[in-house]
C-alpha cells in the first residue's frame, strides 16, 4: 500500500536561503539594475516591487561544451519536402535547424529577469543613503519616553489595578479552596432534606446535620473574597524612544516655464526623495511647498497632482520656508532639511534675493540643503547665484538633471551616507 502524505503545511520557501545567497552574490549587479528599473518607470509606478534583469553572462555557470563550428550532423523531425542532397542557407543561429545550439548551452542570450519583493527592491534602492548630520542634534536632545504595556505585575498603584485579572485569580483561588467543603455541603444538604421529609426537622439526626451544615457554611464564607495575593496591576514600562526629530522641506517650482517634462522630472525627484524618507525613517515631518509667483504649503495630493501654474518668484518659496521654520520648527530642536527643484528660470532680480535669504537665514538653520536644477541647457541665473552659497556653506549641494535616468544617481549623490 502506498503512503499518501499531505505536505502542504510543511515549510515553503525551502530555497529562501539560496535566493538570499543569489542576491548577496550579485548585489552590485542587482543594485545597478534596480536603479535602471526605476529610471524608466512611470511616476505612479515608482513605488512597488520590481522586476529586475541582469545580463546572463554575468551570472552564467560556465561548462565545457561545444561551440559553433566544425562538422555536425543532426536529426530533426517534421520534414515535408526535402530529399537527400537538398541544400539550403544556414538559418540564423538559434532558429529553425540550428535549434540544437540553444539547448547545448542551456541558456539563451536574453537577460536573466526575476522579481524582487517591494521591501528588497527599496532596500537595494536606498542602500547607502542617509540624511546627513542627523545624529548631531539627536544627541543633544532629551530622550523621549513612551509608556508601553508590559503585561501585569503583582504590585503597583491602586489606579492601575486591573479588575478583571484580579477577579480572575480571586475566583480561581476561591473555587480551589472551597471545593472540598462544597461537595460535603451538597451531600449533607441532600441527606438533611431526606431526613426532614421522613422524620421532621426536630429529630436528633436532623439537628445534628443542621449544625454541621451551619458549621461548613461558616467555613466556606470564611474564605476571603479578595486577598492581597489576588491583586493584579496593569504594568507599564517606560520605553525610551530615540527620535530623530527631523523635518524635510520640499520646494517645487511649478511656474509656467516648467513644462510638462520638467515638472515630471521634479515630481520624480520628490517622489523618490519621499519614498526614501518614508522607507528609512520612522518619523519625519514633511513640509511640501509649491510656488510660482507665490508660494503655498500644500498636502501630498496637491503637491504631486495639482495643475495650477503661473510666473516665477523663487524667493516666495524660500520666504515661506523661513516663516514656517520660525513658526513651527525651532532650529534648536529640529534637524531641518531642504530640497528645492526648479528649472532655474527666475524673475529678474529675484535670484540675488534668494541667495540672500539662503545665506542669511536658511543655511544657518538647516542641516543640509539640496538644490536640483532640471532640464536647462545652460545653468540659469539662479544657479549662478547659488554657486556663491555653495562656496560658503559646505552643507549646501547642487546638481543638474537633464533626464529621468539621472535622478537616482543625483539623489543618491546628494544624500549619500557619509563614512562615520
Amino acid at each position, binding site marked *: 500500500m*502506498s*503512503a*499518501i*502524505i*499531505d*505536505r*502542504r503545511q*510543511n515549510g*515553503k*520557501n*525551502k*530555497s529562501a*536561503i*539560496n*535566493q*538570499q*545567497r*543569489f542576491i548577496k*552574490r*550579485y548585489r552590485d549587479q542587482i543594485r545597478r539594475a534596480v536603479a535602471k528599473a526605476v529610471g524608466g518607470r512611470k511616476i505612479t509606478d515608482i513605488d512597488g516591487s520590481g*522586476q529586475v534583469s541582469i545580463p546572463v553572462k554575468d*551570472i*552564467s*555557470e*560556465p*561548462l*565545457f*561544451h*561545444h*561551440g559553433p*563550428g*566544425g*562538422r*555536425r*550532423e*543532426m*536529426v*530533426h*523531425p*517534421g*520534414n*515535408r519536402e*526535402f*530529399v*537527400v*542532397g537538398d*541544400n*539550403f*542557407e*544556414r538559418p540564423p543561429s538559434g532558429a*529553425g*535547424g*540550428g*535549434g540544437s545550439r540553444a*539547448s547545448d*548551452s542551456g541558456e539563451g542570450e536574453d537577460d*536573466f*529577469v*526575476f*522579481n524582487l519583493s517591494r521591501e528588497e527592491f527599496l532596500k537595494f534602492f536606498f542602500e547607502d543613503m542617509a540624511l546627513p548630520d542627523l545624529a548631531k542634534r539627536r544627541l543633544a536632545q532629551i530622550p523621549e519616553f513612551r509608556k508601553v504595556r508590559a503585561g501585569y505585575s503583582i504590585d503597583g498603584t491602586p489606579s492601575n489595578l486591573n479588575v478583571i485579572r484580579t477577579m480572575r485569580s480571586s475566583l480561581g483561588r476561591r473555587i480551589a479552596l472551597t471545593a472540598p467543603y462544597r461537595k460535603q455541603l451538597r451531600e449533607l444538604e441532600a441527606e438533611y432534606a431526606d431526613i426532614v421529609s421522613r422524620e421532621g426537622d426536630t429529630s436528633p439526626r436532623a439537628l445534628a446535620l443542621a449544625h454541621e451544615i451551619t458549621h461548613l457554611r461558616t467555613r466556606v464564607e470564611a474564605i476571603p473574597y479578595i486577598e492581597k495575593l489576588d491583586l493584579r496591576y496593569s504594568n507599564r514600562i517606560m520605553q525610551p524612544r530615540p527620535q530623530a526629530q527631523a523635518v524635510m522641506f520640499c520646494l517645487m517650482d511649478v511656474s509656467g516655464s516648467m513644462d510638462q517634462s520638467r515638472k515630471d522630472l521634479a515630481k520624480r525627484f520628490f517622489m523618490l526623495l519621499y519614498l526614501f524618507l518614508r522607507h528609512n525613517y520612522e518619523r519625519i515631518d514633511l513640509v511640501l511647498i509649491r510656488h510660482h509667483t507665490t508660494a503655498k504649503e500644500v498636502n501630498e495630493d496637491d503637491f504631486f497632482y495639482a495643475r495650477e501654474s503661473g510666473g516665477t518668484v523663487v524667493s516666495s518659496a524660500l520666504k515661506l520656508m523661513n516663516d514656517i521654520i520660525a513658526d513651527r520648527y525651532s532650529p534648536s530642536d529640529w534637524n531641518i532639511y531642504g530640497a528645492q527643484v526648479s528649472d532655474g528660470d527666475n524673475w529678474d532680480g529675484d535670484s540675488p534675493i534668494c541667495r540672500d535669504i539662503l545665506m542669511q537665514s536658511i543655511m544657518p538653520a538647516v542641516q543640509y540643503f539640496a538644490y536640483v536644477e532640471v532640464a536647462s541647457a545652460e545653468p540659469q541665473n539662479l544657479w549662478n547665484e547659488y554657486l556663491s552659497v555653495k562656496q560658503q556653506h559646505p552643507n549646501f549641494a547642487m546638481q543638474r538633471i537633464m533626464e529621468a535616468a539621472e535622478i537616482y544617481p543625483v539623489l543618491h549623490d546628494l544624500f549619500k551616507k557619509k563614512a562615520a
Partner: protein
Amino acid sequence: MAYISTGSEWTFELIQRYEHEIARIASDFKLDTYPNQIEIITAEQMLDAYATVGLPIGYHHWSYGKHFLSSERGYKRGQMGLAYEIVINSNPCIAYLMEENSMTMQALTIAHASYGHNSFFKGNYLFRTWTSADAIVDYLLFARNYITECEQRYGEQSVELLLDSCHALMNYGVDRYKRPKRLSLAQEQARQKERENYLQMQINDLWRTLPNHALHDDDEDDGLDPTESDEPPFPGEPQENLLYFFEKNAPKLAPWQREIVRIVRKLAQYFYPQRQTKVMNEGWATFWHYTILQQLYKEKLVNDAFMMEFLHAHTNVVYQPSFDSPYYSGLNPYALGFAMFQDIRRMCEAPTEEDRLWAPDIAGSDWVKTLDFAMRNFKDESFIQQFLSPKVIRDLKLFSVLDDDRDSRLRVTAIHNDSGYREIREMLAQQYNLSQLEPNIQVAHVDLHGDRSLTLRHVQSERKPLDDSFEEVLKHVARLWGFTVRLETVFEDGRSEMTHETKVEKRRRYALSA
C-alpha cells in the same frame, strides 16, 4: 461498475481509490516498483523542489536561488506550466503531486511517476548498477550537514567558491565504467575522518619535494636532471574523471575541500543514469500513464470527461513541433520515447512485413515481456539503435542535416525512406551518446617536478571547437588544482597544440583558501 469520481476536485480518499486501482492494473502488467510515497505539495513548494533538481534535501548554493527566481517568474507570469510531478529515485520512491492539479491530473501523475518512473528506476540496469535508491536520502542529509559545517568553520564564501568550481566540472565528475561504492550516511561519516588522514598522507607523498639522492648519486655525471629522467609520467593514463583526479591529487586542497569535491562528484554520479536515459525514462513513464489510464477507461472506472481531460494533457506532453516551428527546440524526449514504446507494442501485437524484416526478434512476441526487456537492458543510445523502426522514423518525418562550417550551405543527408532508415537510426543514437555530446577532455599530464602545472587535453571530434566559456571553466580548474593549468588541443589530423594557459588568479576573490 461505478465511476471512481465524476468531478474534477480531488480528495485524499479519491486519491487513495485511484491509487489502488492503478496499482492493481500496474501489477497486472507486471510492473515491479519500489514502495511509493506520494506527497501532496503546493505550487510554491513545487517551485522549491524545482530549484534543487527535485532533491528533497540539498546543500545551499546561490545557483539554486537563481533557478528558483527564474522559474518563479516564468510560472507567475504564466509563461511556463509547472511539471505536474517530480519523482525521486529513492526507496521508497517519493513523488510530489501538486495541490492545484485536478483529480484527472493526479491520477495521471500517479500512473506516470509512481508506476512508470518508479519501475524504470527499479528495473533499468544503469540505475541498478549506479545508484543506491536505499541510501540516497541519507547521503543527501550527510552532504548538507557536512557542507553547512564547513560554512561555519571556513566561511560561506570559501565554500561557495569551491562549489562553483566543482559545479563547473560536474559533467566531468563521473566514472563511466566503474561501479561506485554504495552511499550511506553511517558509512560516510565513519569513513570520512579516516579518508581525510589517509588522503593527505598520500598527497604529501606525491608532492615530496626532496629528490631521492641515494638513488640518483651515481647518475649525476650524465648531466641530466635526475628528477626528470626515470620517473614515470603522471598520471600514468589520461584521466577522464576530473573531479576524482582533483579529489585525490590536487596538491593544495585541504581535507574538507576534498570531501566537498567528493560530495559533488557523488551527486554527479547519481544523476548520470538520468542523463543517459531521458528518452527511455520519460517514454516509459508516458507509455504507462497512457496505457494504465486507458485501462481504467476500458473498465469503466472513469468517465468521458476524465478521458478528455487526460488526453488533452497527454497530447501536450507528447507534442513534437517541426524543425521549422518557432517552438522547436530539438526532439522532445517524451514524444520520441512514447512513440517508440507504443511502436514496440504494435510490432508485437500487429506486426507488418516490414517489422518481420527489420525486427524479427520483436515482431509477434509477447509485448509485456519485450517492453520489460527493453526497459531493463538499454540506455537511450542503444535503445534507439536497437528499437527505432522505420515506422517511427516515417511518423516523425525524421531527416538529417549536415552542418559543416567549411560549406556555405546546409545539406540534407538522409530522410525517412528506404535508403535513409539505417543512417538516421545510427545518427540519432549517436545524438544521445553523452561521450559524443560532451567535448572529450582529460587530464593528460602533471609536471611533478617543475611548476606543478596541469595539462588538460581536448581531443576534437568533427573539428568541433570548445565554446568560448571554456576559459571561465579553466579558471575553475586552476582554482581546484592550485597551479597553472594548460589546455592542449588535439586536432583531427593528429596535430596537437597548447591552446590556452590559465594561471592561478592571485586576487583574493578567486583564491580558494581564505
